[in-house]
């Protein structure tokens, strides 16, 4: 093939055609991926509508959809109490954890007192920690603190467990804020505390929002801590309580599926409302974590 043909071919005629073929292929691939992603929800939904206590045969729209299953699952699992309990736990964890994580990130990045590098390294060390690694001592510690079987048994340890990521995340943000910002404030005689609230926190708002979203998700979906540290399912997070239902309704597939769908509904609903922020937080969260 001549040099001219090699140069002109991709430029002139096929320019539009491969692009369209590419788009169609891309859409076909994405459709397949979306199908695989949604399949579990669809089968759960169809199973949830089968008569309670039966074994529905795979994916099949029931002749007589039993919407009542959702009501039964909601009531017998005390979903209203669980929603309240999960909300209290999330509200106990996220604001405190985000606030002190942001403060520490600012302190390490901008004020950088002597020795803070070592402390930062200690925090980073915890980034890959599997929770199972410390769940046993955590049980005895929480017991010694007298908060076993209370919501605090989930709230306080989670704040500690989120610190490596929070500090890492917020420090990465503050390191990139130009120093002139705080210098200007310093000349105006602002204390570090005023500088933090008036200058730094307003600029850090997107980073703080992402952090809050991630920690809300992690708290809401947390499973190991609730099942170990809180015996009463109704004092747990929704995900933790789901473990108890499985024991309770393990053989009643329609009710189990209805319960699981109710339990995953709040996060999915929140996700659909705030999808842009969630997607950004999850992508950045993975990259930085």
């Amino acid at each position, binding site marked *: 093939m001549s040099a001219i043909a090699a140069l002109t071919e991709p430029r002139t005629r096929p320019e539009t055609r491969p692009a369209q073929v*590419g*788009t169609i*292929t891309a*859409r076909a*691939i*994405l459709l397949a*991926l979306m199908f*695989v*992603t949604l399949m*579990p929800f669809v*089968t759960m939904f169809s199973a949830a509508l089968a008569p309670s206590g039966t074994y*529905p*045969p*795979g994916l099949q729209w029931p002749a007589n959809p039993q919407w009542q299953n959702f009501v039964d699952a909601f009531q017998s699992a005390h979903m209203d109490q669980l929603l309240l309990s999960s909300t209290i736990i999330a509200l106990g964890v996220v604001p405190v954890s985000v606030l*002190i*994580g942001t*403060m520490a990130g600012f*302190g*390490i990045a901008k004020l950088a*007192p002597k020795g803070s590098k070592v*402390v930062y390294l200690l*925090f980073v060390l*915890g980034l*890959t*920690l*599997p*929770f*199972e*690694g*410390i*769940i*046993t*001592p*955590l049980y005895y*510690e929480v017991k010694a603190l007298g908060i076993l079987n209370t919501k605090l048994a989930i709230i*306080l340890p989670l704040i*500690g*467990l989120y*610190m*490596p990521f*929070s*500090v890492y995340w917020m420090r990465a943000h503050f390191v990139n804020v130009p120093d002139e910002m705080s210098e200007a404030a310093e*000349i105006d005689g602002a204390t570090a505390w005023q500088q933090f609230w008036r200058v730094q926190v307003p600029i850090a708002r997107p980073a703080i929002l992402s952090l809050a979203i991630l920690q809300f*998700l992690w708290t*809401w*979906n947390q*499973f*190991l801590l609730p099942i170990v540290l809180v015996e009463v399912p109704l004092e747990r997070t*929704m*995900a933790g309580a*789901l473990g108890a239902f*499985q024991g309770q309704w393990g053989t009643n597939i329609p009710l189990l599926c209805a319960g*699981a769908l109710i339990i995953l509904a709040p996060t*999915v609903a929140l996700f*659909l409302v705030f*999808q842009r922020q969630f*997607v950004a937080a999850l*992508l950045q969260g*993975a990259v930085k*974590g």
Partner: protein
Amino acid sequence: MSLADSQRSGVVRSPTSVRGRAALVAWAFIVPAFIFYATFVLVPIGMSIYYSLLRWDGIGKAQFKGLSNYLVVLSESDFLQILANAFQLVVYFTVIPVAIGLGVASAIRNHLGGRFGATARTILFIPQVIPLVAAGIAWSWMLASDGVVNQALSLLGLGSITRGWLGDFDFALPAVGLIGAWVLLGLCTMLLVTGIARIDPSLYEAARIDGASAWDEFRWITLPGLRQEIGVCVTVTVIAALASFDIVYIATGGGPGIQTTVPGLEIYRLAFAHRQVGLASALAVVLMLLVILCVLPIQWLTRQPK
């Protein structure tokens, strides 16, 4: 030196005490986070190490046993199988999502615009926002003997291989791996798709003009360009596999036998069901070290050369 500075240091206090005060203020920002971290992470890590040297039922008197718990964890065949299970899960949790993600990313490079792309992005992220427990329940139902997987296989004329996948001695662990792959697939795909969009398109154009094959493009442009994103995907998925708990707890409970038991589940069982706190803690320390030992080289290999 500004006027304010000289006033503060000259008139009110000596320069050293100003610096001392500044350091105190700085530490006041850091200390609350550190107290929580120390109390609920560093101290428990220390206690895990201490417990790992004991023979203790969690209630009565503990006996100091030195390193004998580690000897058990690293030599008894059941424990070795449990550790091997975790590494086998890495194959499913990591290789499937990263391989599919790379394929998809190269195929749809620059075609993820518009409303269709946005919808796809949203849907592919859903597994990331639901509790893993719910994913476990959904898939145990799909993989059950009368679940949709077998239904599909029968439709394809493969009725002879249908079974209760999660109860099958040979297929339970791959089936659990498949659940993890499903959870992580969307995240990896989106990370790689976002990454590939950042590669300079002129590189691909130049390669095409040079007559490079699709494989050459992939090998010499896409792979190096996605180095960092691949590193992120591999790190996240390897940790998810080694530290897996929720999915296994719900889908199989570790069975049949110990075919799908992973370290996280065994720690939970040893500590809270069998009251063997020492052994559980030794396994916990081994797990923490394994995760670090696996993650560090990945980070080191995929760090962008500066």
